[in-house]
């Protein structure tokens, strides 16, 4: 049985959101050993697991949680089946709610721009995504040389495809709104 009530507040919150007991991690380090992004993270996944156990709230402002590429290697290899990638998702969700704006600028901009397109059209519209991303991230000149190549190859649609069930998509977004607080620009 999972005891939702014991431990520091952050530990309890992660446990209740995921149904996973963070205390099961015994710090073997296999997650970090197989993590493709470990070398770029100030706090590596094994350390993140320890900090969840300790209830360290500063995790919500740590860029490391956003540098995870969601490759699922750690979850696949964890001998305790603690699913570090799932816990990272829960940390990011909490970070969006309680420490908005703490994601590295470009990564946060990408997530917001991506979901904005889904909410607007029901499907991805790449040109809209790139424009939205650039406006939010300030990375105006990145990849400007890539667009013509994509056009030549017929890889960019110029107008979005809108699905018929947009009302339903918007209802889904509304129903899934965070419980408290919110990013000032929740898509």
């Amino acid at each position, binding site marked *: 049985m999972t005891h939702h009530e014991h431990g520091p507040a952050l530990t309890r919150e992660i446990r209740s959101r995921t149904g996973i007991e963070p205390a099961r991690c015994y710090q073997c380090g296999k997650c970090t050993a197989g993590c493709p992004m470990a070398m770029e993270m100030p706090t590596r996944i094994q350390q993140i697991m320890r900090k969840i156990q300790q209830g360290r709230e500063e995790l919500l402002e740590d860029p490391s949680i956003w540098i995870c*590429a969601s*490759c*699922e290697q750690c979850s696949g290899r964890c001998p305790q089946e603690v699913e570090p990638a799932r816990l990272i998702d829960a940390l990011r969700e909490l970070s*969006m709610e309680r420490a908005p704006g703490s994601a590295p600028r470009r990564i946060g901009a990408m997530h917001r721009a991506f979901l904005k397109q889904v909410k607007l059209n029901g*499907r991805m519209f790449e040109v809209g995504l*790139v424009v939205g991303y650039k406006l939010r991230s300030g990375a105006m000149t990145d990849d400007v040389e890539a667009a013509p190549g994509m056009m030549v190859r017929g890889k960019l649609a110029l107008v979005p495809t809108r699905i018929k069930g947009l009302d*339903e998509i918007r209802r889904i977004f509304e129903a899934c709104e965070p419980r408290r607080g919110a990013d000032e620009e929740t898509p």
Partner: protein
Amino acid sequence: MKFGYYPGCSLHATAREYSESLLTLVDALDVELEEVEDWACCGASSAHSTNHLLGVALPARTLAIAEGQGMENIVAPCAACYGRLAGAAHEVNADPALKEKVAGILERPLDNTPEIINVLAFLQQLLPVIQDKITKPLEGVKVACYYGCLLVRPHKVTQFDDPEQPESMEQVCAAVGATPLAWNKRIECCGAGFSLSRTGSVIRLGREILDDARAAGAELVVVGCPMCHSNLDMRQGAMNKGQAGADDLPVLYITELVGLALGLDPKAMGLHRHYVSTKPLLDRLSTALVASEGKVS
């Protein structure tokens, strides 16, 4: 044969050649794909990374619509869409309270979630038909099968192949005559959705993957994911720049490779849309093919 079909956003845009090669291939195999009506984006990494419920509800809408269409299965060629659809199906089936909540949000029944099939499982099922139609076996073509992350992980969701030592892609490649190589980076991550927001990471990871494939003697890399493809193909110029011995290495969708063995038109399959030119490979293949045809006659 008939399957449910979820193209996903990439196949309509950046991964156009994946769509073209898949549709050309199923046409040649007399397989019918019935599209999920009015499907929406699966939410990809942005939904599940920022809002777990949204990351389940968006793909669950597709599951519910497919169920309403009476589909028993859905082929999801994009590995990321596959991961999200299979993940949502896994979560709602494992958690009745979540299932009820999501069905309430969707205002749709969500009872018999269809089986989600990735491109490798799909082609494996079709292998007997494929093998009957091979006209140009890819004999002597050395391929590095690259699975990346989401075709095999997380195993409890995919229930597919061996997550550490998968074999399904090699089996499909070998079945059309190619020679799959042993190499180390088959299940390593390419950086996925960081293509724009953390390009440097994608270059670092992609370079390691391509270097290892070259060291193993590969003349092409085979993929089953639009993100793997765009990272390894579109970004390859930046990966190879200034690197000694980093020759262009074509990156083919598995559907393109199988299509070539069936003698399907490379242009109809979109092989001209790649960043790393496929022309030297196609030229070499046609030379080899002419030579082997010569021997036969």
